[in-house]
């Protein structure tokens, strides 16, 4: 128990000491995860919308696979990305292994199915309401997708935040493709794993509390920018 108390105290001490290394780690965590969420949203949301408005032969199978991929084990994603980016792999010439870019790629793969799947469910419900209207207006397919994405933006925000939540706390994949290199690819989660390995539980916990605080701040910031979850607008 005392480890937890020490961890909390340690978290405050770390933040108020304005430790440069700590801010570097926090900043990289945010850069990697936010980039991954933005990229994955640009891929996942149109994919979800497209699946909602189109009827094709293997639609049910595609959606089932997409839903199953939400549970993709990050370590496996990490390993696959590693094999591709390794110097001996097909994309080795790009020299991306052990860089933040490699970490972003792994996270995009992990969270795209999640964002696509949640988007699909939200848009499918809205499509049921909008179907007759959009058809009667003779809207083209891309117009329909655009309208649906625009009008279900609240639910899509949830999809992005879910992706953010999964990515910011992820450690298995980015450990493999990032390598946890000090001052280059070390982020909060890999630093926590490192400190736990050293048996420095209090310090590891302090970093953990900072990670949780960071996730809360980002979520609050998004809500305040997008003016959601306020008393006047339900």
């Amino acid at each position, binding site marked *: 128990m005392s480890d937890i108390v020490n961890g909390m105290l340690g978290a405050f001490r770390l933040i108020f000491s304005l430790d440069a290394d700590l801010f570097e780690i926090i900043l990289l965590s945010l850069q990697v995860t936010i980039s991954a969420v933005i990229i994955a949203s640009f891929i996942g949301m149109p994919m979800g919308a497209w699946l909602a408005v189109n009827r094709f032969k293997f639609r049910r199978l595609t959606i089932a696979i997409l839903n199953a991929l939400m549970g993709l084990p990050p370590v496996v994603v990490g390993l696959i990305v590693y094999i591709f980016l390794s110097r001996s792999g097909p994309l080795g010439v790009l020299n991306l292994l052990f860089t933040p870019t490699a970490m972003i790629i792994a996270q995009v793969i992990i969270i795209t199915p999640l964002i696509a799947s949640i988007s699909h469910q939200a848009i499918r419900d809205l499509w049921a309401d909008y179907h007759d209207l959009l058809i009667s207006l003779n809207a083209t397919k891309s117009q329909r997708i655009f309208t649906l994405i625009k009008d279900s933006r609240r639910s899509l925000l949830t999809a992005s935040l879910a992706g953010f939540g999964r990515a910011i706390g992820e450690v298995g994949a980015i450990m493999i493709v990032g390598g946890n290199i000090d001052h280059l690819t070390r982020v909060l989660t890999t630093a926590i794993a490192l400190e736990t390995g*050293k048996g*420095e539980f209090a310090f590891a916990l302090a970093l953990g509390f900072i990670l949780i605080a960071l996730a809360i701040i980002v979520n609050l910031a998004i809500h305040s920018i997008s003016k959601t979850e306020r008393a006047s607008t339900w």
Partner: protein
Amino acid sequence: MKFVAHLLVFISTILFSNSAYTAEMKLAVTTSFNNSGLSDVLIPEIKKDLGLDVQLLVVGTGQALKLGRAGDVDAILVHSKKAEEEFVSDGFSTHRREIMYNDFVIIGPSSDPAKISNSTTTVEALGKIAKHKSIFTSRGDDSGTHRKEKSLWKAAGKDPERFEATWYRAVGAGMGATLNTASGMNAYLMSDRASWLKFGNKGELKLLFSGDPVLFNQYAYLPINPLKHSHVKIDHAKTLETWLTSKKTQKMIGAYTVNGETLFTPNAIKKVN
């Protein structure tokens, strides 16, 4: 639209900020070397003396050799002589250069149920643990430490593959995680001295046996062969080798202590073998 433009700038800064203008190289090292804290002393010195940014990938010896074979690092610093010699004979490195050694120690519950602390040899100590079936945690991750442990069991006439999981627990993790597991189960284990001294969650565990010469642990530096992987930064790898084996660095390695204990004995030889 402005928002999107900002986004694109933001993403591209991240994506392209990796392009290197400074001298840098990637070195895969073992967890024991990093956990000892010696790397925290050496890395800034390397930067100061050579202007070289050494990026450390802290992995087990098995994985370090794998990264070297794939050409994903420029050099490796590991401790498993047999595997290193195979690495060289397979042509992935031109040579292995011995840098320093430390030693392994046997840790266990302070009550010492198998009574190993008065053993005279490692083989005797391990034999007692096996006979008593006291809980023993093994790295089980094909690292240098794991390979060493297996060879010691073999020397004691035992085959660790046949041990029952009731007492022999292969955790398949790094030194730190294995120490944490042992601490939780109050188990015996073999660790390098450096990781043990630096470990922050000792619990009931205590150093019970050490000093047997078979427990010495030689570290060697192996630059990756540019004939196998033309992209490796052989110049930096060579500069670093010269620096690591220099009188000044060797003296610094010998002078490094934790809680007043010397961790590494420098023994770099002048000539490349």
